[in-house]
């Protein structure tokens, strides 16, 4: 009942957001915001398509960027062909072709990888990832080597007469495809294949004894997830007009995993949350700090240990309490968690930044500025404060967390009754 207005509302917000930051004085859109939103769109597709494997089919793939990347490379070449007048394809359908190239490659690699299960599957996908990364550096004609391949998206071929000269038009193209791809991926979860993918995740063996070849189920799921990843890659190519090795290399595969996991693999929309959050961190925190990847990494580890269901899982766990109207009784316990958490966080950030400025920062000739004042990274005081804050925060949080745990248990027990 709630999701009925949630989805249109989200789409409306995504449409309106660029206009909220429109610079009326100079009559232009905030470029930073547009590029961040565009990035979010393609990352949402990447994370959701990855979760077709991880969350829905229980397949731990390490080569998902391969299909994203191939979609990107294919699009660059297609755009160049259209631009040269060799191919009559409108811009709006480009991501579809990118998806098909992802699908083709995923059929090939999926046939290999889904022969095996569990660890062996993961290792095959790792091999595929390395293979593609090597291929990208070796075969210059298609991949362009380290420099990548460039294109120009102004191909003057559009269903709606658009030029895609502005970031806004590109963003709306991305948004449209993100909504479409998300809708299709959701639809897939409601089909026999989608349901059997869940079944083979839960019990590979049993699926065989109700007439299904679980390898075929996984192969098809793998191929389809490659299709969607390819769409994401196509949007990437259109946005940046250059595709390099980065678009198919292992770090992006890891990013897909990170986004899906942090967002939550057990809920369909979880990876959307993860993609938005990680992109925000990537665009926002990376401007403020050299160490943003450290924070993402630590957040990932913390999630795996303390909240394996991800953000969406945490939200979902509040469902029964919300239905019984008791959500209010959690406000104070949560506030009590916030204070020690902030201490822990500030201490941790302090130490990371101090260390970072001791080495990288010094090399860049920058000065650490915290809370509006310069900080001397060689003095003892900042280190003492950071360490103290970290340790005290951690100890205090342990006590508060135990208390919170008791309250939570009691509340869920009451609600269940």
């Amino acid at each position: 009942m709630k999701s009925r207005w949630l989805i249109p509302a989200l789409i409306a917000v995504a449409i309106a957001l660029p206009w909220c930051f429109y610079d009326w004085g100079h009559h232009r859109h905030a470029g930073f915001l547009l590029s961040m939103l565009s990035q979010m769109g393609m990352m949402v597709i990447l994370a959701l398509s990855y979760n077709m494997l991880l969350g829905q089919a229980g397949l731990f793939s390490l080569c998902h960027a391969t299909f994203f990347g191939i979609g990107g490379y294919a699009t660059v070449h297609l755009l160049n062909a259209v631009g040269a007048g060799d191919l009559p394809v409108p811009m709006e359908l480009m991501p579809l072709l990118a998806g098909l190239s992802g699908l083709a490659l995923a059929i090939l690699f999926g046939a290999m990888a889904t022969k095996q299960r569990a660890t062996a599957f993961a290792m095959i996908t790792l091999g595929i990832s390395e293979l593609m990364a090597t291929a990208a550096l070796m075969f210059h004609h298609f991949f362009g080597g380290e420099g990548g391949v460039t294109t120009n998206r102004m191909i003057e071929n559009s269903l709606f007469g658009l030029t895609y000269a502005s970031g806004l038009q590109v963003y709306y193209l991305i948004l449209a495809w993100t909504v479409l791809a998300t809708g299709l991926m959701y639809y897939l979860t409601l089909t026999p294949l989608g349901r059997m993918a869940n079944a083979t995740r839960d019990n590979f063996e049993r699926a065989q004894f109700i007439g299904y070849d679980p390898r075929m189920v996984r192969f098809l799921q793998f191929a389809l997830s490659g299709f969607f990843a390819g769409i994401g890659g196509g949007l990437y190519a259109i946005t940046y007009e250059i595709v390099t090795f980065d678009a198919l290399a292992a770090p992006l595969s890891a990013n897909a995993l990170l986004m899906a996991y942090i967002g939550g693999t057990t809920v369909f929309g979880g990876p959307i949350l993860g993609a938005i959050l990680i992109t925000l961190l990537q665009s926002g925190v990376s401007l403020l700090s050299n160490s943003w990847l450290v924070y993402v990494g630590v957040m990932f580890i913390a999630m795996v240990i303390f909240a394996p269901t991800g953000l969406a899982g945490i939200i979902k766990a509040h469902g029964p309490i919300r239905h019984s109207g008791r959500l209010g009784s959690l406000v104070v316990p949560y506030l009590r968690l916030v204070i020690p958490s902030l201490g822990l966080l500030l201490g941790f950030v302090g130490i990371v930044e101090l260390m970072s400025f001791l080495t990288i920062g010094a090399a860049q000739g920058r000065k650490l500025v915290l809370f509006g004042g310069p900080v001397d990274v060689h003095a003892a005081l900042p280190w003492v404060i950071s360490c103290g804050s970290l340790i005290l925060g951690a100890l205090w949080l342990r006590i508060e967390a135990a208390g919170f745990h008791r309250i939570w248990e009691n509340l869920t027990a009451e609600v269940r009754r």
Partner: protein
Amino acid sequence: MTALTLRNVRKNFGATEIIRGVTLDIAPGERHCIIGPNGAGKTTCFNLISGRFPITSGEILLNGERIDTLPPHKINRMGLSRSFQITSIFQRLSVFENLRCALLWSRGYRYSFWSPLWRQKALNEAAEVLLEDLNLSARRDILAGLLSYAEQRALEIGMTIAGGASVVLLDEPTAGMSNTETDYAMALIRRVTAGKTLLMVEHDMKVVFDLADTITVLVYGQVIASGPPVEVRANRAVQEAYLGALE
């Protein structure tokens, strides 16, 4: 023609011969129980018939067709379905979804990624009817992994018969159940396997002698007796090897 035939089936695990030449003929509609001491190879027999393990030598025929070289899913599609001694269900799917999954292949959905499940009226009704049959309607939307043990066993049986297989193999369906639960489970099994060929491994002698048309006694991978309950009960070799302790 027999529903299920085993001809001199043998199975080695490494150098050890676990099944040592089993020959069985099971007529259509027969209720056939396999009994035997622990380690006799009863479950291994099921694993061979259902295609979970390949046989070392011999032949297995389902309705006159060789199945001993086929993978489990193909054997299942030909009309042979099995349950597991250790409950084997889809833990993170709801009870309803478990049953619906078990119905899918036999209803021709194959690997469809285009038909929306919520609009498959006949399929969904069949799943609801099964829920009703298994007395699990009240648990419809609970995750299967959260059911009680007896309920999980009922679900296991439901998933086994859902596809409409003509030959049903049940591996100790009442293992670990209380007396009342056993009675209930047996009534359920009789109801849902009516008209089907039933092959069952069972330890509870009361259940076996109540239900079976034919009993086969397996000891150390060999059939030492096979026949109607009265004959098997009177058989000296059986009494010595197995039943002796009971009488």
